[in-house]
């Protein structure tokens, strides 16, 4: 019954997003509030060097990820937690299914987890006849609508209250309302039974701590706590980079995470889980599984140009400041990882050629770098991706993306490396342009690749006299004014 169909391309997705008034209004509000707000958080930090410190520690952790993960694994096992190492999405999802089968699971409740969508675990379980319910309100809403989330922290940011009202009236059988508190209460009631009686909870992992062997989950709604407390099995999915070495690192990361993503000093719940509950406890899981997921991350780790992107703590702040995301919304990226972080991560995980539009489809304004709590240089990485698309890179299975563009720049190179060629090209264009100049003095229509410019914009014509010619003429005039040798009427 889903009305959602994935856009055929980034450009088409962008067009849809631009035409969606609700999306435009909601993203404007989001960015005005949370985007600007994040910068205010940084300006008000007690320790102005905190982000630099945290970045250093993140890179140290990543540079020694083998060591840090081995300590995490040992400590999780010490607490009687089970650890599974998945090289691929398929391995991770299959393991979840195996655990579900072992425990005769009929109902799974999920805490919000980007990586769970990455591995496609929902579909695998549902095909087995297991009911899978998202319990984060935003995820629950998009699950009911059978569409993907459109923002890392706020999955339903693209919807307005009336749409949610109609959805709940239809799916939950309640009387229509567009009052957010009423709707939230309806979701609370609808999900309570699921949360209390599910057999298995699947969550992500915001920050694991190697030193203590615990994973921690950061939330406001309480659904993640419920999903990890009431079911008898808890499976935590973790991208292998989501680990802090020490509790001090954890404290600093947490501080930045809640401020950057939600402008909060702290979120409502930070739960620290490690291992199953003590025998005899009326709640808490009997079995705790930590699934470490590679799925392309070790390849990113191996590349010094891109290792930095693994420092990301998934706060979503970059989405909240990106002028491109703010216009087109998350669905246009055709990936669960959208916005600036998605533009780098998605091509690296799924294919650079496949997602060439994500590499090239932004203006490199740098707002994301400015706001990132861990100073991730996403513009630099986007340039590196564009470089691979320009020349190809067998190491990343990438072939040159646009041969016509490559040729154009080869030609351009010829012009810009010799002043004389450059001037000649300008002179030629100066002649050719004459018929294109409209009455208002501007050029309104160009052809070829430049036609895209004149679709919505005018262009000034080449000046009658370039700066260079004016300069040369002025020098000549000064020359003769200064009373030097008669200039013989030497030409312009």
């Amino acid at each position, binding site marked *: 019954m889903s009305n959602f169909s994935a856009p055929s391309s980034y450009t088409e997705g962008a067009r849809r997003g631009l035409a969606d008034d609700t999306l435009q209004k909601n993203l404007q509000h989001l960015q005005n509030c949370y985007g600007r707000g994040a910068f205010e958080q940084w300006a008000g930090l007690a320790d102005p060097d905190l982000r630099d410190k945290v970045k250093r520690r993140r890179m140290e952790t990543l540079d020694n990820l083998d060591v840090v993960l081995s300590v995490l694994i040992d400590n999780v096992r010490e607490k009687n937690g089970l650890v599974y190492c998945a090289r691929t999405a398929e391995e991770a999802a299959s393991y979840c299914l195996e655990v579900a089968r072992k425990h005769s699971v009929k109902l799974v409740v999920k805490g919000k987890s980007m990586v769970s969508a990455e591995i496609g675990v929902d579909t695998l379980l549902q095909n087995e006849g297991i009911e899978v319910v998202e319990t984060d309100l935003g995820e629950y809403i998009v699950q009911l609508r059978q569409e993907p989330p459109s923002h890392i922290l706020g999955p339903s940011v693209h919807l307005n209250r009336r749409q949610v009202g109609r959805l709940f009236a239809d799916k939950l059988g309640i009387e229509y309302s567009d009052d957010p508190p009423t709707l939230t209460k309806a979701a609370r009631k609808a999900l309570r039974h699921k949360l209390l009686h599910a057999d298995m909870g699947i969550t992500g992992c915001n920050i694991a701590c190697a030193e203590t062997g615990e994973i921690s989950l950061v939330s406001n709604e309480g659904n993640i706590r419920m999903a990890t407390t009431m079911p008898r099995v808890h499976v935590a999915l973790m991208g292998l980079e989501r680990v802090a070495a020490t509790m001090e690192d954890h404290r600093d990361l947490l501080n930045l995470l809640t401020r950057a993503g939600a402008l909060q000093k702290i979120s409502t719940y930070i739960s620290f889980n490690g291992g199953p509950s003590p025998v005899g406890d009326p709640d808490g899981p009997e079995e705790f599984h930590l699934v470490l997921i590679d799925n392309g991350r070790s390849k990113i780790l191996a590349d010094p140009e891109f290792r930095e992107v693994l420092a990301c703590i998934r706060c979503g702040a970059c989405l909240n400041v990106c002028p491109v995301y703010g216009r087109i919304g998350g669905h246009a990226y055709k990936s669960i990882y959208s916005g600036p972080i998605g533009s780098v991560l998605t091509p690296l995980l799924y294919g650079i050629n496949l997602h060439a539009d994500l590499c090239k489809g932004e203006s490199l*304004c740098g707002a994301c*770098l400015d706001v990132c709590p861990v100073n991730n240089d996403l513009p630099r990485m986007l340039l590196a991706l564009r470089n691979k698309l320009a020349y190809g890179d067998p190491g990343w299975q990438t072939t040159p993306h646009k041969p016509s563009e490559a040729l154009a720049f080869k030609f351009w190179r010829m012009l810009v*490396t*010799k002043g004389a060629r450059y001037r000649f090209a300008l002179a030629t264009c100066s002649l050719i342009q004459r018929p294109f100049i409209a009455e208002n003095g501007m050029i309104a229509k160009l052809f070829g690749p430049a036609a895209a410019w004149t679709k919505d914009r005018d262009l000034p014509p080449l000046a009658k006299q370039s700066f260079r010619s004016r300069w040369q003429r002025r020098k000549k005039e000064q020359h003769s004014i200064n009373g030097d040798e008669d200039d013989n009427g030497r030409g312009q």
Partner: protein
Amino acid sequence: MTPKVSLFIQCLVDSLYPDVGDAMVSVLEQLGVSLDYPEAQTCCGQPAFNSGYSNEAKAAARHFIELFADSEAIVCPSGSCVHMVRHYYPVLFGNEDEATRKLTDRVASRCYEFTEYLVDVLGVDKVKARFPARVTYHDSCHLLRGLKIAEQPRRLLSAVDGLEFIEMNDSDICCGFGGTFSVNYPDISTAMVDQKIDNIIASGAEFVTGCDVSCLMNIQGRVSRRQEQIKVKHIAEILASSEAEP
């Protein structure tokens, strides 16, 4: 000691907006700066670099650093070009021989954006200019975030005789140019420049100015198509103004 400046006239200024170059020359000459203009200059390489064509960009960059090798100071009326030279030339030539790296560092460290040169190097924060109009300012991305230049243009503008300076909403949000982005993703780019223009209009200003011709060309192009009343002027032109009529 007479300050000496080699003019770095961005390709777009040279070919499309030579008045901007003239204006910058006029202001610098009025301040007693001695100017030279390496005539073989072409382009800093940014269009190629931002599109991923680092080899082609490097060729342009090499031409540049050789041309400006002996300059005392290199001044350009474009923040993005200066950013290219200062931040990315050392990256492009990072693996070259020592002589090239030294030359790159030398050129990079002597390259300034126009308002930055006036305020930070010459120590001038008021020029003899008159421009009686309501003016708002657009913060170009590379200038603001890359070079951290925001205060200098504002200081200069606020000191212009008769000029009423208005801060617009979201002056620091990208205008949507982004080089080839504007022709490869025109729908998104246009939506961004439309938002910029709406903010300019909402500010009540008659003019929008900035330090980067790429941005101004983008804004002006869309203003023209939308047939809005807003006029677009590079900051050099305002600082060189002395007539009563803007």
